[in-house]
């Protein structure tokens, strides 16, 4: 009996083992980074910082199970440290183990009660683990922290919605989008609550915003996590950084990150392919062309490369060459709707209107939701003197009434007038003008107004 108790006691206090890693199976860059950290951790396996450093490296390379194991050991070795349970919680969130993550976050906050990102993550984990009462208390406490207020409003809105209190949910969620106007997820939650209350029009408008903004999310600065991300200096991490910089509009930074990636790994097709587009946007056509040649030589990602090269040539107004590039993109992928659309625009420019119309139709066949291609087809049909057919196409793109819609409505108005439906045309033109004004498209609204005046 006594022996059993002792064994149990030892088992309870023994830190978890270091992760077992098949280091030989990793590519060179990862192997080098992970091996070094693993070797250090094995040599100093009771030193929390060294073991935690292994966790950080594995975390940076997205080896979630290994990172969790290393962090857990580090935490067992240094129970009062903040960063090991905190980083472990982030890994556990990534593994969708939210209740465990909440537990780790509580431990982290015991060590560092003021660390705001940990408080936000705790509230989020509690919500995902369906512990609504605790989540609500956590979010309510965060509502007084300016940096965390958007997260608090969103969380409280979600909790109210789950409890069926949609009026209350809407108030919280409206606050969330007021604080962070491009929060797609908050608009999605708003749409659901509007629908629950029968407010259909508002629901549809909120959904449009959700689709417009997608995954944009208000961040809370997190130095502990940033230190993990900074550990990656390999080519692929550079590409990822470059892509993020490009999304933020930092063209120079994006190009530099991609070039840094190629300096480490010259045959990284993804980097070459991205640089075709990035240099194209920077109007450095010579460099863009060089990277296009590199992608073709590598024989990878060809569909994207031919398409981007077509865009590049179009920017230089080399229309015949651009058309050829799009045809190559289509040969690689016959379902490439964008390539068909862009090829159609070149054919249109060359006054090959029938061919352009057919090409736009192929784009739509491949991607029926491609509104721009359908708009282009509608325009072509008008140019070819087929307003009735144009009306049939253009009627399909009048919804949603987003920023794209005014010109589609105006094209539909024109088609009706050409078809002899003057009054219907005037109505659509009026709608187009009103919508253009709502979207701040004053020039378009003025142009429509002039046409309306002449029609009347």
């Amino acid at each position, binding site marked *: 009996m006594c022996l059993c108790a002792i064994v149990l006691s030892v088992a309870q206090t023994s830190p978890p083992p270091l992760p077992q890693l*098949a280091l*030989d*199976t*990793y*590519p060179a*860059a*990862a192997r080098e980074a*992970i091996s070094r950290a693993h070797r250090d951790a094995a040599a100093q396996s009771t030193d929390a910082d060294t073991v935690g450093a292994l966790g950080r490296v594995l975390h940076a*390379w*997205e*080896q*979630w*199970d*290994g990172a969790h194991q290393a962090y857990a050991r580090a935490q067992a070795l240094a129970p009062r440290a903040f960063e090991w349970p905190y980083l472990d919680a982030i890994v556990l969130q*990534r*593994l*969708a*183990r*939210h*209740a465990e993550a909440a537990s780790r976050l509580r431990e982290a906050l015991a060590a560092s009660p003021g660390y705001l990102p940990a408080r936000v993550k705790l509230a989020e984990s509690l919500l*995902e*683990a*369906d512990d609504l009462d605790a989540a609500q208390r956590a979010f309510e406490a965060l509502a007084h922290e300016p940096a965390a207020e958007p997260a608090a409003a969103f969380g409280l809105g*979600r909790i109210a919605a*789950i409890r069926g209190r949609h009026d209350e949910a809407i108030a919280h969620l409206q606050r969330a989008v007021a604080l962070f106007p491009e929060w797609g*997820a908050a*608009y*999605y*939650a708003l*749409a*659901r609550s509007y*629908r*629950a209350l029968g407010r259909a029009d508002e*629901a*549809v408008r909120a*959904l449009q915003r*959700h689709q417009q903004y*997608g*995954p944009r999310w208000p961040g809370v600065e997190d130095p502990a996590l940033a230190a993990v991300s900074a550990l990656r200096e*390999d*080519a*692929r991490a550079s590409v990822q950084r470059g892509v993020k910089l490009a999304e933020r509009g930092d063209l120079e930074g994006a190009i530099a990150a991609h070039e840094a990636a190629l300096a480490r790994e010259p045959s990284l*097709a*993804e980097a070459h392919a991205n640089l075709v587009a990035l240099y194209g946007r920077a109007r450095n056509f010579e460099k863009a062309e060089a990277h296009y040649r590199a992608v073709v030589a590598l024989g*990878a*990602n*060809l*569909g*994207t490369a031919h398409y981007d090269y077509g865009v590049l040539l179009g920017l230089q107004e080399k229309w015949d060459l651009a058309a050829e590039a799009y045809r190559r993109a289509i*040969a*690689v*992928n*016959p*379902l*490439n*709707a964008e390539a068909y659309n862009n090829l159609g625009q070149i054919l249109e420019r060359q006054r090959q209107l029938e061919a352009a119309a057919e090409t736009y139709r192929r784009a739509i066949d*491949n*991607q*029926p*939701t491609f509104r721009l291609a359908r708009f282009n087809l509608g325009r072509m049909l008008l140019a070819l003197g087929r307003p009735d057919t144009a009306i049939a196409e253009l009627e399909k793109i009048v919804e949603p009434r987003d920023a794209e819609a005014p010109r589609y409505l105006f094209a539909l108005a024109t088609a009706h007038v050409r078809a002899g439906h003057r009054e219907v045309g005037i109505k659509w033109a009026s709608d187009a003008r009103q919508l253009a004004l709502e979207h701040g498209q004053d020039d378009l609204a003025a142009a429509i107004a002039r046409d309306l005046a002449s029609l009347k």
Partner: protein
Amino acid sequence: MNRVLVRLAPALIVVSVMPGRTGSGAAPEELFVERAAAAGLAFTHVNGAAGGYYLPEVMGAGVALFDFDNDGDLDLFLVQGGALDGSGPATSRLFRNDLTAADPRRPLRFTDVTARSGLGLRAYGMGAAVGDYDNDGYLDLFVTSFGPDTLYHNNGDGTFTDVTRQAGVSDASWSTSAAFVDYDRDGRLDLFVANYVDFTIAANQVCSDAVGARDYCGPRAYHPVPDRLYHNEGNGHFANATERAGVNKADGAGLGVAIGDYDGDGWIDLYVANDATPNQLWINKHDGTFADLGLLSGSAVNAQGNPEGSMGIASGDVDLDGDEDLFVTNIAGETSVLYINDGHASFDDARARWGVALPTAAFTGFGTDFFDYDNDGWPDLLVANGAVNVVEAQRGQPSPFRMRNQLFHNTGQRRFEEASAAGGAAFARAEIGRGAAFGDIDNDGDVDVVVTNNNGPVRLLVNQAGSRNHWLAVRVTQAPGNRFGVGALVGVERAGRPTLWRRVRTDGSYLSASDVRVHFGLGSSPLTDGVVVKWPDGPSERWTGIAGDKLVTLERGTGGKP
């Protein structure tokens, strides 16, 4: 099996009595026993992978469970991959179930009848759908492929004829799951085909995993391809109704499809699971068109507004409140999701509350369905799991995509509990699970499961658990149209307990077709108050005097008023 004709006022019921196994002694140790090889199912899927990391290699393939020869037992069609260009010897296979209705004591045994049947499809197959599209009383077969799809007409004599060209259902897009459904109530089964992405071998993208090793790309490396809806014109020909019906108004990389009446208006809707793109809930507008209510319904994306992996679908009344709920399998790190319906197509993401989030967090799920494996009346759940990207712990090993399958027990308390350990060795083996089809293969009164593995052998999970409780299997028939009553809703009324509702359908799961008969677990009592059938075109009928532990065939026009 004895076939008896029983007349019960006011309705005529054709009852096929099958041997009940209730009260037959001690409970078996394992809920399921794997018997594919023992039953003669010699089939191994070949994915053709040769280092090119072509996306179709990790997606297939499926299975169809259907009684092609109308002899009263479920036969098996297994979809094969092979070489991606369609060359090579690998073919899909048809296995005839030799159980035979006449002698239920015979051991479960299948015979490969592919050659005689004409179903040796030589294509890079993906999935299968089953339905009697020409109303001749024999179930036909539609096979989706990476490449043109194929419609096989069941000739009723054990052979099939490729009628794809005449039927007009050839589509070169990469198709995945499909469903036969009479969406316009004209008595003819139409066909919905989920299409995936615009991958071509020439346009193959080079992708790598987190540590920089070459890996399969995700769907976001390509563009979604529009799904297809074919309207059955009644003359052996289908018309492409995709645009007319409006089901091309939303994009999605389609992998799973299920039919159900999710808004409770009596008309069949369609639910499509889209990989990394919002799922679609196509609500039937009663005029041959559909409107996508996915996002507003809450069944399209997660609570953060983000689309998930969405592969397989289970559709059914999981909480016995009379409406159809949805379970969708997702990729590891996302958790599978249970959407609880309020009866009006507004869904609550109940994955955490019902206990399915945490157990599925580490798994990439594909084939799935609700089925009452222990016949206690509550729909349980099986998930066939297998990764599409290298599993961290299996790095460097052959086939590093292996995962074990999972079994979940519905406690009846709005909660699922994982029962994989009780499920037996079949749930401990890690393979690359994909398709799953459900049906009582040995006609012993409980639901068995066929699971397909990517680049691996088929598994036949024979249920050992159902004998603990009573059950009722129902086959509905009508004439002249939609002979198997696909889309009908069957309800078993029980005194003092909620009515059990099951939809007659073969779709759902992933790339697979399940038994068209509906199965009810009745718990400790074989008695029912009545059986109600809501026919797909609206009217309802009710039968009384039906006790459990047998298969009953309910013919339209022989029931009373509900």
